[in-house]
């Protein structure tokens, strides 16, 4: 029972973990990550497309990663090279992701709702342990590792230090020879790839792409990142917390009377409380949203 709950929580959390890991990298470099929703969606579509035409889940993973990267680079060019407002560009990326995936879903599969069944990773074999079952999908362990990997890169490597410097004080970073624009480009590209992997997990787990399948998960990841005060590990814990609430709601459905809508609100309510500083104030990187 507890193992089943844990396994379900982890499965729900995987897209959040990927996206929150990516969002943390971009935001700590000073680029706002409203784009996570769009990255997840294009990642999912890319994965379905790749898996369908390549007949392999791994090709799907690669295509999901690439799709997230492309959208990350578009966001990077608009906001870093051309200094577009990061919030506007972020919203536009999300609208563009919905438009592009719908348009090409129609062109590729002649459908406005979903792709045909595509190859994914093997599903859980009966009789095996639930936790061992999680390992059947390599994106699950990868998603669990993404957060500690980002934490390590951010706090233990020279490049992580550069990312944080650029996000706190770009002018100071530049005086000591850091190329601010380049660091930010890499950070946004990485965030696109990580969130793209989260999207790939969504599509491959369900063996198909469905219209708008990210369904707000990018915003939940954004909320988790803020709730975790822009710290990768704390953001990762927030992802697990939000996922556990969802898993609990699914298990309690119909028996105890908490409407699902109220469970859906939990991440957003907690994040607003954290931002307002009622308990332990969340403080964004100092140069977040500002051009160089």
């Amino acid at each position: 029972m507890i193992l089943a709950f844990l396994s379900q929580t982890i499965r729900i959390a995987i897209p959040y973990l990927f996206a929150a890991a990516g969002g943390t990298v971009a935001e700590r470099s000073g680029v706002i990550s409203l784009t996570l929703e769009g990255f997840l969606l294009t990642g999912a579509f890319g994965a379905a497309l790749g898996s369908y035409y390549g007949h392999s889940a791994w090709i799907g993973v690669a295509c999901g990663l690439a799709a997230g990267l492309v959208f990350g680079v578009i966001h990077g060019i608009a906001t870093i090279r051309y200094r577009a407002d990061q919030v506007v560009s972020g919203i536009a990326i999300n609208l563009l992701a919905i438009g592009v995936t719908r348009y090409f879903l129609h062109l590729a599969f002649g459908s406005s709702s979903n792709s045909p069944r595509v190859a994914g990773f093997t599903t859980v074999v009966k009789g095996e342990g639930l936790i061992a079952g999680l390992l059947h999908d390599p994106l699950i362990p990868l998603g669990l590792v993404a957060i500690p990997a980002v934490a390590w890169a951010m706090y233990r490597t020279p490049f992580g230090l550069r990312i944080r410097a650029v996000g706190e004080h770009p002018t100071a970073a530049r005086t000591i020879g850091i190329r601010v624009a380049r660091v930010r480009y890499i950070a946004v590209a990485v965030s696109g790839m990580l969130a793209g992997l989260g999207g790939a997990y969504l599509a491959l787990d369900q063996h198909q792409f469905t219209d708008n399948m990210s369904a707000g998960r990018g915003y939940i990841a954004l909320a988790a990142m803020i709730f975790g005060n822009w710290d990768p590990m704390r953001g990762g814990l927030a992802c697990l917390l939000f996922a556990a609430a969802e898993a609990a709601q699914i298990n309690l459905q119909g028996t105890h009377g908490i409407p699902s809508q109220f469970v859906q609100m939990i991440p957003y309510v907690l994040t607003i409380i954290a931002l307002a500083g009622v308990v332990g104030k969340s403080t964004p990187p100092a140069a977040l949203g500002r051009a160089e």
Partner: protein
Amino acid sequence: MRARVGEALLPPIVALLVALVVGDILILSVGQSPADVWALLLRGTWGNAYGFGQVLYKTTTLTCTGLCVAIGLRAGLFNIGGEGQLAAGGFAAALAGLALPAGTPLGIALPACIAAALAAGAVTGWVPGILRARFGAHEVITTIMFNFIILALLNWAISTTLRVPETLHTRAVHAGAIAPLGDVLPAFHGSAANWSLVLSLAAAAAMWWYLFRTRAGYDLRAVGLQPDAAESGGIAVGRVWVRALTLSGALAGLGGVNFVLGYKHYYEDGFATGAGFLGIAVALVGRNTPAGIVLASIFFATLSQGGLAINALVPKTMVDVLQGAVIIAVAASVPEVRRVMRRRARSAAT
């Protein structure tokens, strides 16, 4: 002066060009002729009264959400909560219309329903305003989060108690319905266009008057341009922020009247989807001026309605791609070209 005209014309020109170029690529990619598709789009929107009526209907909502974003930006605040505020306004209008007894004279029912929409929008804007002014919680994040909270609450209210069984909408309002334009101008018959259009244009005019002809509007713009300078000039910045977001929410809430009182006569879950976010595009292309916003609303409404017109030749979702591409291109090109123009103006002056 020439530079200012140039800056004002730049966003719409970029928007049109990008829509044309990206549209051409997408049209050619499915093997159709761009000329045919664009002609079909124009015929289906401006070329007949029904299509034009639909454009006017969509213009009405977009004008409201565009004004909502613009008044926030004038105060230096980014309200992305239009989606939830629009839904809240529509929901409140429907509740008011359901609460009033059938046969309430229009002169009482209509103002009451509109006031309910404005009030619901205002409250949903006021909360992030207070959170920003008192607690320093950034309005971009809080308004996004409130979108989800408001939509979840409304979904809960509709799906548990207020719906007509087997649907996700309320019963039709008893009072306060707004007449379709087709009643007076028979050409529009059958389209969703209704007199809410006049309300949204009046809101644009009122916003112009408020921003540029009142002291409170002057304060609001001063805070938007330079909050520190405004503060030292004696303006209570926090209070202006709260006021701006409250007005912003009310403007989005007014947009809900168009769907609920003017078109369907009931509240339906999800009616606001997309219109709140498109308000950002409208404010961007309309450069936060009321007149520009009305024109930009017509542009985006035409695109949106045009998608349905061209569906036989090109998937209608082409316009979703165009909308996203237009926003990114305008957002990216405006600061760049402004910098180039300023540099040129400076070098000409020396």
